[in-house]
């Protein structure tokens, strides 16, 4: 069975991955000719993603058939909890070592991008339970959204007037529709997102990381005529690039030290195994505990390594140096050589995730990204692409050191609180959801950061369903009302029952509605999907608190407080939209339920939002599926922060932890819900008065903590300033130098011309003048008097004679 899986899974998922690419290519080339106004493009794109979903579902089935979710799993926590490493005898240790098994995965190369000696960068795949689960989730949600978009985007099927764009002459922009182009981008996005999940090495993740980024750019900026949309698109991509910068640094640290990007071990053609990152960091011989890989130790201790190499220079045996270095590596490792490289790699990769998942401090782009059409917000900016950051954090989890995890936890904690507070005051229905997304992503990061791998990714999957549902519902409302502003809505439940009730399901799911175990239903309580995932996150935070008093308390408080605020703003949204008296009658009268192609996907998503968290023992459970992909082993205590200790993840499954967590989650959510009811449901309190009461806080929150302004002052303006300075330097200093050089050369040439004219020529002329004046002065002798000449001859002769005589005599 495994051998068939090994060949069939890559094929099935690969086809699911490449079909959207095919669709994209066809739409790019022939989109406009596909039916009237390119309507065929939507059918093609939808068909390709639905087939992709079928392939993914088949893969999931095959996977579950081959790796049944063990019914015994529920009993496992108690059995494994005391496998805490400190308390083991050697015999137990051996036993434990054999118990801990690395997760099953299939990996292989598709083709090589470049190979330099032993360094190889390739396009490859890595398939484990997480991959299969993510494929099913992404394709399912994407399929629903494709259907929905066919209805939502029908405006684009003919010429339309964009009321948000005013031309220079005061008219609104009139433009042809771009229906096919929307689906072209959607297909490209699906291809990129699936490629990111399919990727077998971190470099390929980076490739698709950038591609989803550019898809997001296109989709946010879909209304290219709107300046705000273009700005938002630019902002999204550039802010993401800031994160990618960190990611590249992380990649460099990994690549420079390990020389591989592959996640898993791959069998080479010659039978040897090329070790991937995971097995190097989580060595099977060390019970999969986090260790610094050999490559990083060597890279960090290069001075000593070099010394050994130099000592062996003169010896004949080249292998001797190598073996001596090998033998010394464990010493170096004990001195923590290379640990900082591992931290850099972890934090660097996480930086990328911060950008993509809109975490603090790079969260600013996501709310602006709501400029895109609503289906895009649902698919890209809530359910899948922004979840890619969380996915990568989860995928790369084995590599994170305790310090890196703490960074992740705090980032998540800050983000979740920050975004939740901003969501309280937002009035744009999509922006509320956007901040809610940021906040929920913070939850996931927090979960991962406090050591809850399963909890974080579980929430990723449940969140994907209910958040896409919420966004599509909001899209349906916007479609009906032609406005995003909640203060203009109200009482819409009668007009839009399908939308209203499915949205209610979504709201309940996101606040984690359910009955905690104290009410005596199932051992872990009973509720909508969000209940289970949020519950396990809080349990994990509590478990972390038990081991780390200070950090744990702050993070636990953030998680619990965030849950409360979430409940408040979600029901604020729902109440303001669907309950009470219509605030704007013009809007209310034009409102209508959306067509069937739009609300049927809502129903599908709503049912998933309710049930996806449920456990059907032995058949289906998201947590058990994720558990199959979890790397066992401990991260241990920090090196830079020795007091930081990560408890075994399974410790959070203990009954009392769950009890406390469940009660906390329940009470905080209930508190938030009641508050929202008081304000917006039954209107005992007037929000406007409270707003006046707390005017400074309100202003602070409505301005989104002034982050945009702060970044403008801190980064954007200085960058432009530096750019200006450099351009000035280029034109004035360097070019000025060159031009001055030319000018001076010209001056020197002029001077040289003077010398030539006056000095050299002058000398020549002077000689001539002397000659001339000599001749002139001699001409007096030439009297023309014959007799005088004769006298001179005589005198001369006589004088000559005398001189000769005297000379010969003397």
């Amino acid at each position, binding site marked *: 069975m495994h051998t068939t899986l090994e060949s069939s899974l890559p094929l099935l998922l690969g086809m699911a991955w490449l079909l959207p690419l095919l669709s994209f290519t066809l739409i790019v080339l022939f989109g406009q000719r596909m039916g009237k106004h390119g309507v065929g493009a939507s059918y093609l794109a939808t068909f390709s993603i639905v087939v992709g979903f079928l392939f993914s579902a088949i893969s999931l089935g095959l996977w579950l058939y081959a790796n049944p979710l063990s019914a015994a799993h529920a009993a496992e926590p108690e059995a494994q909890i005391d496998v805490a490493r400190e308390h083991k005898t050697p015999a137990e240790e051996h036993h434990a070592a054999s118990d801990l098994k690395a997760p099953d995965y299939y990996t292989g190369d598709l083709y090589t991008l*470049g190979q*330099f000696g032993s360094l190889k960068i390739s396009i490859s795949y890595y398939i484990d339970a997480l991959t299969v689960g993510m494929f099913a989730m992404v394709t399912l949600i994407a399929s629903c959204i494709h259907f929905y978009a066919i209805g939502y985007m029908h405006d684009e099927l003919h010429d339309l007037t964009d009321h948000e764009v005013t031309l*220079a002459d005061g008219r609104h922009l009139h433009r042809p529709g771009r229906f096919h182009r929307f689906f072209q981008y959607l297909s490209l996005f699906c291809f990129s997102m699936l490629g990111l999940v399919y990727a077998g090495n971190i470099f390929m993740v*980076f490739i698709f990381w950038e591609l989803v980024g550019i898809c997001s750019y296109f989709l946010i900026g879909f209304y290219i005529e709107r300046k705000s949309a273009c700005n938002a698109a630019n902002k999204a991509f550039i802010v993401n*690039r800031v994160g990618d910068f960190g990611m590249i640094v992380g990649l460099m640290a990994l690549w420079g030290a390990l020389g591989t990007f592959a996640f898993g071990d791959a069998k080479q053609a010659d039978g040897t195994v090329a070790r991937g990152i995971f097995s190097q960091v989580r060595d099977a011989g060390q019970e999969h505990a986090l260790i610094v890989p050999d490559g990083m130790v*060597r890279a960090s201790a290069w001075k000593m390594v070099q010394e050994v*190499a130099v000592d062996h220079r003169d010896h004949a045996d080249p292998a001797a140096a190598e073996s001596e270095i090998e033998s010394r590596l464990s010493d170096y490792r004990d001195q923590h050589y290379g640990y900082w490289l591992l931290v850099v790699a972890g934090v660097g990769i996480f930086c990328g995730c911060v950008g993509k998942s809109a975490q603090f401090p790079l969260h600013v782009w996501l709310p602006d990204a709501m400029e895109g059409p609503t289906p895009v917000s649902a698919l890209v900016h809530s359910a899948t692409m922004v979840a890619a950051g969380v996915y990568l954090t989860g995928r790369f989890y084995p590599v994170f050191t305790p310090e890196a995890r703490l960074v992740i936890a705090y980032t998540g904690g800050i983000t979740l609180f920050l975004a939740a507070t901003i969501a309280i005051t937002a009035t744009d229905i999509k922006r509320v959801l956007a901040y809610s997304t940021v906040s929920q992503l913070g939850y996931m990061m927090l979960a991962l950061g406090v050591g809850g791998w399963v909890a974080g990714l579980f929430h990723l999957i449940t969140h994907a369903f209910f958040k896409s549902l919420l966004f599509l519902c909001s899209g349906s409302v916007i479609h009906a009302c032609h406005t995003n502003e909640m203060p203009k809505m109200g009482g819409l439940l009668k007009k839009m029952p399908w939308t209203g009730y499915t949205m209610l399901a979504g709201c309940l799911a996101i606040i984690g509605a359910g009955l905690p175990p104290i009410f005596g239903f199932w051992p872990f309580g009973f509720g909508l999907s969000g209940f289970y995932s949020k519950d396990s996150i809080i349990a994990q935070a509590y478990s972390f608190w038990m081991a780390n008093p200070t950090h744990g308390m702050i993070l636990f408080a953030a998680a619990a407080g965030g849950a409360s605020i979430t409940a408040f703003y979600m029901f604020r949204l729902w109440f303001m939209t669907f309950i009470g008296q219509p605030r704007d009658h013009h809007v209310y009268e034009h409102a209508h339920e959306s067509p069937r192609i739009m609300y049927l996907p809502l129903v599908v998503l709503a049912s998933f939002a309710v049930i996806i968290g449920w456990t059907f023992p032995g058949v289906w459970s998201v947590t058990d599926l994720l558990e199959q992909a979890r790397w066992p082993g401990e991260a241990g205590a920090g090196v830079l922060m020795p007091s930081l200790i990560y408890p075994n993840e399974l410790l959070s499954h203990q009954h009392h932890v769950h009890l406390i967590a469940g009660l906390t989650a329940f009470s905080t959510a209930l508190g938030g819900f009641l508050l929202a009811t008081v304000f917006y449901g039954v209107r005992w309190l007037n929000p406007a008065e409270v707003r006046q009461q707390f005017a400074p806080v309100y202003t602070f929150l409505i301005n989104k903590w002034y982050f945009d302004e702060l970044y403008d002052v801190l980064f954007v303006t200085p*960058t432009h300033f530096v750019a200006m300075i450099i351009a000035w330097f280029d034109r004035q200093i360097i070019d000025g130098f060159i031009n001055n050089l030319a000018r001076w050369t010209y001056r020197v040439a002029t001077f040289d011309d003077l010398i030539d004219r006056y000095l050299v020529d002058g000398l020549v002329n002077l000689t001539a003048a002397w000659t001339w004046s000599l001749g002139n002065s001699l001409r007096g002798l030439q009297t023309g008097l014959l007799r005088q000449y004769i006298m001179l001859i005589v005198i001369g002769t006589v004088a000559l004679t005398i001189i000769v005589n005297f000379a010969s005599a003397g």
Partner: protein
Amino acid sequence: MDQSVIWLSLIVFLPALAALVLAFIPKGQPDVIKLISLAATVAVFLASCVVTFGWFGADEVHFQKGVAEMQDVFSLPWIPSFNIFYFMGTDGISLPLVVLTTFVTMLSMGASWTINKHVKAYCILFLLLETGMLGVFLALDFFLFYVFWEVMLLPMYFLIGVWGGPRREYAAIKFFLYTLLGSVLMLIAILMLYFNSDLAELARISDLLPDNAAASVKWADLHIDPSATQAAEEVALAREAGRIPPAASPVHTFNLLALAAMGQHTSLFNDQLLFGKSMQWWSFLLLFIGFIIKVPAVPVHTWLPDAHVEAPTPISMILAGILLKMGGYGIIRICYPICPDAGYDLAWLVVGIGVISMVYGAFAALAQKDFKRLVAYSSVSHMGYVLVGIGVWSAWSGTNFNPEYWQMGMNGAMFQMVAHGISSPGMFFMVGIIYERVHHRNLDEFGGLFAKAPIYSGIAFGIFFAGLGLPGLCGFIGEVFVTLSVWNYSHALAVVSASVVILTASYILWTLQRVYLGPEYKGPHGDHITPITGRELAIGVPLLAFAILLGVYPRAVFDYTTPSINKEVTDLAAWTRATKEEQLLARRMERDRRQGVTDDPLIGE
């Protein structure tokens, strides 16, 4: 041998021949002249394809992938009394650039269709320029190389100075003087190397002499002409036998391969010259300055923005696509192999200038208001990657600093040259298309082009994204491979070079927004914006197609370049191990002895 003479000479001199033919065509028929020129460039492109792919059954000259050594080599006497030969050949380093040259020249001849001023002179100069460029890439004789280098210069001067924009004279003179300065420095270095070279010394350590058949220098690989071989052998034997003193009657050479072997295997170029630096240190520096003027790198780059802004579109394409590559090619082909010792000592300079160019170019691009100037500065930034990739000399035995990262860097640099040779002409062509319609390039006065010319804008987006380094397009591979290779040379420089991705994204996206997006066109001549024509499509689409092909399947280039580059790097790494490490250790021991240090960890037992 015979076939390669014919084909390589054909590639180089066919354009010149066509120029000669054009001289006899009457002036009044510009279309005929353009057609003949286009036919010539197409023919040259086909000829380069014949050599690359062995079309038309040309098996004898078919370039073999995976072979690192020189191929299709031939050598004919030219000025034998100075050992100057008509000596050409190609390998994985030059062949991709030759094909790139013929390809881009062909496309830019197509882009020249809008030139209407003195068409005949333009075409003649254009074809002469192509001869010069191809000659530079194919020449293996240093003197021949220099001659082609200069041949290229003059047509370019006139092409900018006559057919350029309003400040064309200034730009042309600036270009000419800058480049001439480089040439002069190069000439000095050439002469220094020539007069220090000695084939006889090389022969003594090669397998030419009967009793050291196992020597590492293989005489046959150097392709030295028989007459020079004979002279070298005689002198070497005489010296061995003690009939003449060791350094007497040297046999000088211009053969680049032989010079490289001398640089790596003999100490001929190590004589002290000035300020305690060796002859090869100085010649490396002179050659390096000559080449980075061409690259161009900060601070000798300012000819580029002016030349680009003033040059007509097709000339900008050639300038960006090919001329800039000669600098990088020269450094790879000449600087490093011939002067390895200086290369090792000055690696910091090469990488440092590269990183500075990357950052500086990106910042400068961000501040530009002129569309073409912006693209020009983006070239400065992108060519910085080439220098960085070439320079990351990380090779020391025993450590992780193995030459494989340098191989990656240099391959990345090579790829970056080809990729930039595709994307940059594309960008200039895109600017040219819009300039021809609205006659201005002010970035603040565009906007809304997407609605008016969707196909043109689509292609422009693709090409600009290739420049941005988007995965799946050609810019990505080179940039990322280079960046990844820097880490093991210097962490700090690696981080700085990684940060450039943010700036690149900023200036390109901002430009795209200002030019193509937005509701309406803001500048003058709005009604002249017509959809892209068939001719422009025929130029833009191949460029975009190649950008995608190279981005998705980079081995299309790597399969050719990697063997040759890896060989060069491996040779240099071997030289480091055998020669440089020893020198450095000895110097260090000497220093320690003078300072009385006894516990230096490197000086063990």
